[in-house]
Structure formats: C-alpha cells, structure tokens
C-alpha cells in the first residue's frame, strides 16, 4: 500500500517558539527542543518523525514562515 511520508525542516534561528505548529499537527509530530536558539527561544523539532505525513498544516499556521515541508509517496 502506498504510504505518504513527510518531513519538516525548521529554520531554528528564526523560530520564536510560539508552539502554534505543535497544536496544528494532526499526527503529533512536533515538539519543542529543550535547547534554545541565540534569542533564547525553544525551537520546534520533529520529536516523532515517523508519523509525519507532510500535510503542511504546521507550515501554513507558522507566523514566521520558518517551516519547510517535504513529502514523498512510498510504495
């Protein structure tokens, strides 16, 4: 069965840690890193990368446009 796999890349320096992407993700992929960026924000990362479907919800809710989304179909 074809399966869709996705992945996100977060521009960690521009992320402000607002956590809107965490709530927008339907498959609970995104968490906030314990480390902080140079401005002191906890930035988003994929805590559960296997579950990502590349649905783009996190990227379109992100006010700062820091998330890029990649998607492939695997068979």
């Amino acid at each position: 069965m074809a399966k869709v796999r996705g992945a996100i890349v977060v521009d960690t320096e521009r992320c402000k840690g607002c956590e809107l992407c965490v709530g927008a993700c339907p498959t609970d992929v995104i968490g906030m890193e314990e480390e902080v960026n140079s401005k002191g924000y906890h930035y988003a990362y994929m805590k559960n990368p296997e579950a990502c479907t590349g649905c783009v919800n996190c990227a379109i809710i992100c006010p700062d446009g820091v998330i890029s989304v990649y998607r492939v179909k695997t068979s």
Partner: protein
Amino acid sequence: MAEITLDQIIQPENLVYTKSRIMTDTVLHYCPGCGHGTAHRLLAEVIEELDLQADTIGVAPVGCSVLMYNYMDVDMQEAAHGRAPALATAIKRLMPEKFVFTYQGDGDLAAIGTAETIHACNRGENITILFINNGIYGMTGGQMAPTTLPDMKASTCPYGRDVRMMGNPLKITDIVATLPGSYYVTRQSVHTPGNVRKAKKAIRKAVEYQKRNQGTCFVEIVSNCNSGWKMTPADANQWLEENMLPFYPLGDLKVPEE
C-alpha cells in the same frame, strides 16, 4: 522494502511548502504567534502565484505592521497614521496598471483612519485593503481600540469595556459592505490551518478582482494579539474562536454578481 530515511525525504524535488520568495529573510519583529506574520505570508504567496511582484505597490500603515516594507520584497510606501487608503487612492489613480494594496490594523483603519477608509470605499477606489482586526492597540501597549469587544480587558479598560461609558465596538467591515463603492468584502481569520487556507483564497480573490476595475476589495482578517491579551499564542487563538468570532462572524459580506 527498506524504510525511507529523513535524508531521502528532505530533497529539493520533494519540497511541497516553503516561505514565499516575496518574503525577505528579515526576521519579523512581531511577538511569537502573532497573526500578522501569517497575513503577510499569505499576501506574499498570492503576489508570487499571480506573478505580480514587479507590478505591486503596497502601502504600509502605522501600528504593529509599520515595518512591513522590510518584510515584503515589493515596492512599498509608508502612510501617515490612518491615511493609507488616501495614499493608495493617489497611487492607483496615477498608476492604474499597478496592483495597489493597503495593509492596516484596527487602530489605523477603524480609529484614526475611519474617514479615509469609508470615503475611499464609498468612492469605489480600485484598491485592495487588508484589515487586521485583533481588537486592541498592540504596538502602543494594549490599549482599548474601537474594535475591542464589550467586557474585554485592555490596559485602558482594566475592568473590561463598559459599553455605556466607552461606546460600542465598531464593525467597520459591515459598514464598508453597505457602501455602493465596495466590490468584494469578506471577513476571514488565521487562527487554524483551515482558516488560513480560506483566508488565502479570499486574499487571492481580492487581488484578482482589482483587475476588473469595479471598486474597493476589502478583506478583514480577525487575528490574535497574545501579548495584548496576556495569553499564550495557542490560548489566544482559542479565545479568538470563542469570543471574537461570535461578534465578528467569518464569511463573505459582499460578493460580486457574476
């Protein structure tokens, strides 16, 4: 079959979404979670999709989005407080082939700029107005705005807006929809991914309709101000849905007759 690795997924040919190239790499100065960034990005995406970058002139307001010209790679002009529709009128009349938009908050558009807004829309100026309504003066420290809800707290009404003393909130989008000069009037929000998608469609219509030369296109975007509302971004979006949207219901208020 071997499991696919993240490195195999993250390849340029698999890219499905990234920030529009119309948005510059300047870090937005907005508070974390602010809807302004989302609204900027939607407008930038529409301009990119319609290939209007070279033909766009934007007018930035006074308010939180005063530095908008740093964030979008299009020609922009800064207006005096509230006067963006007047400036946009002049630009559009001088250069009718350009796409001209204003981007204004509720303090700019619905308070000091009420006259300019109503007259520009009533004259049917062929411009597109994006109106960000977060019910508060964000930049100056969370004071009560014309759009502040009844009983909503702000720094100048710490016990909540008392409508008997402070008057009623102004639904300026509803007023604009009644004017003969307005062509397309809609109210959207950017607090959930679904609403962001709808808002983008509305902005796209408002941009495309300007080519028809029929009147003012007006898009209100109900947005959050988590700093002014003293909430986390996620809580602010929840509060917006429960309190702002019943008072400012989403949807088209005026659509062109096809």
